[in-house]
């Protein structure tokens, strides 16, 4: 039993992950009934992230729909070696939500799409992502609240607004080097919380 408990602590989402993988397998073989389980397990987390990024309920609902439809269609492309299903879905949600925000920004600023597309930061970094447990998430969230305000703002602008370092520097009217340093220091501090938590 202790082993199971330890495993559960290490992989808090392990059970959900097994169900998710099974749902994706069923979807790939054409069983659309498997969509409901995925929706019920992830809609809240995805919707919350999307809403945080697009800032408006109607638009957040539309993006959530796009993300799920994309996930249902591309179920066969999910690669478990690159991270859990929850992380895969969250990454898609962030990308799509940021695309929306960028489209809106382009509209307001009257910049042409071609120019913008060339200097867009990449909202789809090709990374493996692990998901952390509730306790670790809570600690990082708290650490985020405790970061010096300008470090936190720079990190939030990068992650939730999809701004590049250069755009953040412009927005905060600070030198590019300062912005890079703030973001790095902020992330290192958040990482420190995790390392302590594991010790």
């Amino acid at each position, binding site marked *: 039993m202790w082993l199971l408990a330890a495993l559960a602590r290490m992989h808090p989402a392990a059970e959900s992950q097994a169900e998710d993988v099974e749902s994706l397998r069923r*979807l*790939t073989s*054409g069983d*659309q009934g498997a*969509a409901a389980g995925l929706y019920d397990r992830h*809609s*809240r*987390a995805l*919707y*919350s*992230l999307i809403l945080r990024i697009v*800032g408006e309920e109607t638009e957040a*609902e*539309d993006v*959530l*729909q*796009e993300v*799920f439809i*994309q996930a*249902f*269609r*591309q179920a*066969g492309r999910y690669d478990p070696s690159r991270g859990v299903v929850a992380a895969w879905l*969250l990454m898609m*949600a*962030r990308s799509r939500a940021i695309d929306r925000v960028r*489209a809106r920004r382009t509209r*307001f*600023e*009257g910049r*042409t*799409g071609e120019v913008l597309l060339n*200097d867009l*930061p*990449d909202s789809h970094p090709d*990374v493996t*992502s*692990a998901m*952390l447990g509730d306790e*670790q*998430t809570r600690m*990082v969230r708290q650490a*985020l609240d405790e970061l010096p*305000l300008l470090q*936190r*703002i720079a*990190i939030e*602008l*990068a*992650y*939730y607004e999809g701004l590049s*370092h250069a755009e*953040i520097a412009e927005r*905060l*009217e600070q030198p590019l*080097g300062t912005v890079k*340093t703030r*973001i790095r220091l902020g*992330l290192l501090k958040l*990482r420190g919380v995790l390392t302590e938590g594991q010790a």
Partner: protein
Amino acid sequence: MSLHEELKANAAGYVLGGLDAHDRREFEAHLAGCAECAAEVASLQPVVSVLATAVPQVTPRAELRERILGAAAGLKGADLDGGLKTRPYTVRDRQVSAAMTWLPLAAAIVIAVGAGVYALRLQRQVGELQARFDQAQSTTAVLAAPDLARIDLQGESVAPDARARALWSRSRGLVFTAANLPPAPIGKAYQVWVVTAQAPVSAGLLTTDPTGGGTQYYMTPADIAPPVAVAVTLEPSGGVPSPTGERYLVGMP
């Protein structure tokens, strides 16, 4: 600073997805041969994944479940894994959107031609875009500003349901819209603050309607320092030079 150190400074930006295309390619090329940078990237990724869940958790409306699962049921086998067939946001959409005066018509044509299934949803969007367009006209000066910044505010613990949005341009001022604020007691008023690294600067008072909503336009000093936050406090009815009362709404750019 060596090239390696210079590039390592980009590791955090890389995992946050904040590098522009050129810097990203350069960093990825470096990453392939640099164990130290690869380790830094790997160690920062779990932190970034937490950011995805470190947001206020909100349950979507129950109707949405039906809508999305309904759309899923309409997917045919041929749609599966054959690449993304949902209509993506394209450059052309953005240009169409820029022509605000005929946007509703254009959107209507898109509905008729391309997306029968989504007709109802798009119709609703057209209505909303029209409403947004009407609203935008009254604050065009701010919204059209080249330096427009948007700041969303969340209710503090005294008013957890309150929400607000500030649209701010250094050159053209601040448009502030709030919703769900509790009625201000007699003798009290809501005051809007632009918080800079030096000090909070009063934008002005905010009057709310019976639903707790209100929209107001404020001029802000052209030489104001970059705002690090926008906040709303409850103050004596004439307003005060610097905040004294309880915070109701806070948001950061």
